[in-house]
């Protein structure tokens, strides 16, 4: 199925979970947050959150700013 990660198209396995996506993207163990379809998904819920086709995933990290 197709999902979008930070607006980029990704082909992934059906019913991929957020923790599996995080592993495949090699996300660091801290300093990031993930939202699916505009809802923040806490890390503790990653392994029970399945992505649906066309899911819009946003992953953020720290940036410099005042």
């Amino acid at each position, binding site marked *: 199925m197709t999902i979008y*990660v*930070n607006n*980029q198209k990704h082909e992934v396995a059906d019913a991929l979970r957020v923790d599996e996506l995080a592993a495949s*993207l*090699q*996300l*660091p163990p*801290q*300093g*990031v*947050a*993930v*939202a699916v379809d*505009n809802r*923040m998904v*806490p*890390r503790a819920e990653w392994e029970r959150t399945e992505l649906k086709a066309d899911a819009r995933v*946003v*992953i*953020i*990290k*720290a*940036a*410099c*700013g*005042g």
Partner: protein
Amino acid sequence: MEKLIIAGREFNSRLFLGTGKFNSNEIMEQAILASSTEMVTVAMKRIELNDKNDDMLKHIQHPHIQLLPNTSGVRDAEEAVFAAQMAREAFGTNWLKLEIHPDPRYLLPDSVETLKATERLVKMGFVVLPYCQADPVLCRQLEEAGAATVMPLAAPIGTNKGLQTRDFLRIIIEQAGVPVVVDAGIGAPSHAAEAMEMGASACLVNTAIAVAGDPVEMATAFKEAVVAGRRAYEAGLGTVAHSFEASASSPLTAFLND
């Protein structure tokens, strides 16, 4: 010097630092350490999947430093709440610099949305430090909504113009029941010292340090200015005369002519 207390946490330093515009993460970290700050802002951006090396966070994580994630980039209260949840998850803190400035030209904060977001975020357990207009009525409303501080601007972000809102800052400071942090527009250590002499609880400085010829030395200069201004405030400044008529500080007996 009295300690600054925000939401029950004590701070020895009354200088907050922003992390934008530094030439490198290394210089930023040196400036942070030179300033002795205990509160440092951090913004958020979408992760670039191909870039594993861009990690500014490790340069600002020190045991004595409270991270203050900001919501820069959001346009209204709803987006601010979403950004706040992302920040709390990513950085493990419920402290938040709430900033909602939808207009990119002047980056002036939207008062209506800032107040709305403050009300919601406080209920969600965030320690909210809102960047706001130097509007005494708004600052009262933010305080009533549960803001941990108010952070009125001295001048638009990044302008280095100093205390353009001076008279309103005085009113805000006079009536505030929470710490007043002067944020944005402070361009020189003298501006920071003046804000502190007026009774501001702290100053937030970014551009003036980050774009200085020597950011680390400038960070030290701001540290000293904030301390000097605060000490002067606590010591109690003398009154300013109404006229230019002098008031002697030495005895006027003409000892040479007698």
